[in-house]
Structure formats: structure tokens, C-alpha cells
């Protein structure tokens, strides 16, 4: 790892911490960032209390869970997108490409209609859909990448039709449609804790495959000459990418764009080495989603927009700018 790349990671970590502090300060009641920092640090250090109880409640119970959930979802989508693009060697791959989001959407729609817990049902449906797609694609113990992509698209379309059917016949279409647009407004500490366990574990497990993902970029034939058990790497990466994506989708709905574009932007900055690219995508995904979510809740206060709208609205032009500026990397 050369120095410049290490610098990118350190810079992103600092930026993430700053982003968390600043976005926690922003909202209908503005709280100065230094007070926010003190409130956050007071959990670990003994600091003289110079803030009101009201400020503490706003920071700790209202804003922080939402900001942290945004960071976790962003990190999950950034990592899963990066892993899928590498594994499938396809620049259009994102965390949702093999039907996870469509499965989660069916689960969430059903949950809204039948009044079941949305997070659990959508997680289960996401897991089932990836299991089905994987097994459809399996031919003689192998899972060819092209077949995986195509069966993912086919199953995804089928599930999208089911979701549409449910929305059309449901008594509560609004809730489902808002959920599909993606948002973090239901954040609470319980969600933060559950997703933190799954996302941090999954991200670390995927990181351990960084070297192997690099070699897989050379193509399956060369990777196998270099001693990689390609089917094992596929199963492993798909499993954990699915885990973190399902964990993200089940708490936030379907937030587009982060998992597709963040890895591309990071690839431009850091090059193709997944051992840098994966953590960079996780950090940048977190920064991006926390920032856009803050915009989503601040832009037309007291109402708020689904963050999925903001991610694409701001992310797409920025990505187009990068695309025009540098067209060297093989993907973009």
C-alpha cells in the first residue's frame, strides 16, 4: 500500500468524523458543533456540562441514531457495490443487481399490508431472493457470472411485478412507495445496534477477500492458475454482500446510486486495489449518505424528502463531471 493510498483512507476517516459531528449539529434546532462534540465525548470522558438537557436529548436520542444509521447503510452499500462490481467484473453492478432489493421490496410491501415488522420481513425476503437467484444460476457446481446477472434480472423483474401488484391492490400505497424511495426517518438506537453488528461484520469479512478480488479481476482462468478457488470466492463474497445489503435495505428502503457510483468515484481516486478500494468505498458511502440524508431532512423543513431522491439528484451530476474529466480507468 503506498503512501498516497494510505492518505486517502486517513483523510476519509477524518472527513467521516467531521461529517458526523456537523450533520448532528444541523436540524430544526441548531446546536453548535462544539457542543455536539462535547456531548458525544461526554460518554467517554468526564466533561463539564455546558449544555442543556434538551440539547442532549436531541443529539443523543434523535439525531445521532439517524446519522449513525445513515453511516452504516452508506458503508454497507458502498462496500457491497464495490465487491459486486469486482466479483462480476461489471461496471453496472450494484448491491441490488442480483435481486436483493426486489426481494426486500416484496417483503416490505407485504409487511405494510399485513402489518408485520417491516425490517424483519424485508430482510428475510431479501435473503430468500438471493438464495433463489444463486441456485437458479448454479450449473454443475459452478455459478457463471453471466448467468448470475441474468437470473438476477429475471427474478428481479418478477418480484418487481409482485410489488407493483401489492401496491396497486393495497390500502396503504403511500407507505410502500415512500419506503421504496428510500429513507432513514424510522431510525432509532435499536436499528442502529442490529445493523451495526451485521454491517461491521460483513464489511470486515468482505475486506478479507480484497486480494482475491484483485486477482479475480484478471479473469476466472488466470485466477484459477494463481491458486484461487473461484467458486469459493464467489459464494463467500455474495454471501456477505447480500448480508450487508439486506441489513441496509431492511432499515432504509431502497436507496439507489450510493452502491453504484461511490465505488467508481473511489476507483478513480485510489486505483483498482480492493484492499484500499473496499474501505474507501465504505467510508465514502457513509460520508455521502450521511450528508445527503441531512440535506433530505433540512431542505424543506419541517417536511423531509426521501434521501434516495437526493442521492441521485446530487450524485449523478457529480459523477458525470468525473466521467468527463478522466476517462482512463477501464470501468469509467
Amino acid at each position, binding site marked *: 500500500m503506498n503512501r498516497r493510498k494510505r492518505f486517502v483512507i486517513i483523510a476519509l476517516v477524518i472527513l467521516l468524523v467531521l461529517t458526523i459531528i456537523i450533520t448532528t449539529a444541523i436540524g430544526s434546532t441548531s446546536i453548535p458543533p462544539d457542543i455536539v462534540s462535547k456531548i458525544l465525548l461526554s460518554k467517554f470522558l468526564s466533561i463539564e456540562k455546558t449544555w442543556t438537557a434538551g440539547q442532549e436529548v436531541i443529539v443523543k436520542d434523535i439525531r445521532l441514531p439517524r446519522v449513525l444509521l445513515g453511516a452504516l447503510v452508506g458503508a454497507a452499500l458502498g462496500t457491497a457495490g464495490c465487491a459486486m462490481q469486482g466479483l462480476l467484473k461489471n461496471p453496472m453492478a450494484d448491491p441490488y443487481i442480483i435481486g436483493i432489493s426486489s426481494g426486500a421490496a416484496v417483503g416490505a410491501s407485504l409487511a405494510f399490508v399485513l402489518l408485520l415488522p417491516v425490517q424483519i420481513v424485508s430482510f428475510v425476503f431479501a435473503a430468500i431472493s438471493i438464495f433463489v437467484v444463486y441456485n437458479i444460476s448454479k450449473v454443475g457446481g459452478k455459478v457463471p457470472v453471466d448467468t448470475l446477472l441474468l437470473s438476477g434480472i429475471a427474478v428481479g423483474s418478477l418480484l418487481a411485478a409482485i410489488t407493483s401488484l401489492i401496491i396497486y391492490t393495497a390500502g396503504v400505497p403511500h407507505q410502500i412507495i415512500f419506503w421504496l424511495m428510500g429513507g432513514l426517518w424510522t431510525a432509532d438506537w435499536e436499528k442502529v445496534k442490529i445493523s451495526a453488528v451485521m454491517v461491521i461484520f460483513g464489511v470486515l469479512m468482505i475486506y*478479507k477477500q480484497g486480494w482475491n478480488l*484483485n*486477482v479475480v479481476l484478471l479473469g476466472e482462468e488466470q485466477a484459477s492458475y494463481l*491458486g484461487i478457488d473461484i467458486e469459493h470466492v464467489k459464494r463467500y463474497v455474495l454471501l456477505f454482500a447480500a448480508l450487508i445489503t439486506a441489513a441496509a435495505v431492511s432499515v432504509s428502503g431502497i436507496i439507489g446510486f450510493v452502491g453504484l457510483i461511490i465505488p467508481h468515484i473511489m476507483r478513480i481516486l485510489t*486505483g483498482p486495489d480492493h484492499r484500499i478500494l473496499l474501505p474507501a468505498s465504505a467510508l465514502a458511502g457513509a460520508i455521502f449518505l450521511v450528508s445527503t440524508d441531512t440535506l433530505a431532512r433540512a431542505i424543506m423543513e419541517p417536511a423531509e424528502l426521501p434521501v434516495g431522491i437526493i442521492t441521485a439528484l446530487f450524485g449523478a451530476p457529480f459523477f458525470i463531471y468525473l466521467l468527463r474529466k478522466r476517462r482512463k480507468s*477501464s470501468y469509467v
Partner: protein
Amino acid sequence: MFENSEFSRLEVRNLDFYYNGVQILNQININADNGDFIGIIGANGSGKTTLLKVISRVLKPKVGCVFVDGKNINEMKSREIAKNIGVVPQNISINFDFSVEDIVLMGRTPYVKNQETIEDIAVAREAMRQTNTYHLKDRLITEISGGEMQRVIIARALAQKPGILLLDEPTSHLDLKYQIEILELLKGLSKKLIVIAVIHDLNLAAHYCDKIILLKKGEILSNGTPQEVLTHNNIKHAFDISVEIITNPLTNSLFVLPILEKT
């Protein structure tokens, strides 16, 4: 640093290979020891590439076995095979912005766990020096020439520290200078390794290889020294062309001269 002190031995025993029900290889037997530079020749579609893929277990045969140092490769893990057999495939293209050194380091894949050690870097650099690619180490793999690429991929295979090096047409689509350079390099490497290369140019094969295996329709038509294999009859049989075999007065190697009709 490179010498695989162990003695390497490759044995291919009674190998058949079918692809979608069509027989591609039929009763292949090969024995090779350290120090052998073996050329595989034969017409297009005679099974040369398939043979290399079966030896490296990318393709698994239903009949017959491949043994490396007496061990059946079907019982070896992918990593273990990669420590014993390095492969330089045909027509490599890499579209990602890895540096040359990154690519050579990937040869250490069977030895590393996500992070290379100082020893891995030392082995990769030694492989680059051996193949005369060290000066390219910081260049991007997407920006080097075809001849340089071929040497980098050989360096990557050497970084695996294999006892056996397999190459599929390492000299095709290179100009004459690079062809000679690659074959000289392989000749040097073959003193310590088993080198097996598919080679199209019969004259270069005759000059550089110690042994030649001539394939025809998946069978070994002839196997032995260039003098034994490269005969008028064998070539007529395998390639369906008439040739004159003469001795190159400068090198004393055989020279295969196609008999062309006068126009």
C-alpha cells in the same frame, strides 16, 4: 532465491479428455523431469491448449491422472497446485490499472493472506529481475508493450515458485526479436524447472526445445528429440503439408522448410 531445491517431476498417465461428449485428448502419456524444455506442437485443434489446461487442472479429466512429484493433482488444493505449476496463458489482456509490480505480486497468491510480506515482495522482485522487467515495476500494466507483457506474466508465474512452468503460445503475436528473447529466457529457466510450451514455429521449437511432443487429433503422434520428431513423414501426417528437413549450417539445428509450389 528461486531455485526450487526440490527435484520436480511431472507425469501424465493415460489421460483422456472429453468436452461435451467429443473426445479431445486420447491416451496421453508424458514424463518430464527438472531441466526439460518440452515443446508441444501440432495443427490447430489438435488439443495442445486443452492438454495444458488439463495438466494445470483448470479442466478435469474423467480418465487418467496427472502427477506432480508423485502426487495426484486431483487430491491437491488449488493453492497447492499453484505452488507447483505456473501457467502463462494465451492472449493475456488486463484492463485494470494495476502496476507491473502489483501484477507480479499476484503470483504470490497461493502464499499470502490478503497482505503481502517483505519476503513476497523480494520474491516478486527477483522474478522481475530474472525476466528483465524490474525497470517496469512502477509502470501501469495497461501501458506496456506486448513483449513486455509476456515477460511480466512469466515473472508472475515465476513468483509462484513453481517446479513446472506451462506456457501457451508464448511467442505468438510477438515480433521476431521478442520471440527469441522469450525463448532464450525459457531456455535459461528450464535448467531449474520443467518448462512446457506450446510453440507454433517448428524451427524455433527445434532450436530451443530438448524434447518435442507432436499432437494429432488429441493423440501423441510422436514424442522425443527434435531429430526424432521432426521428420518429413510426421509433419506430413500432422500438418498435411510436405516439407524438406535440412540442418541449419549455422546452428546445427533442424530446419523445417515447407515445399511451396512455384507460382
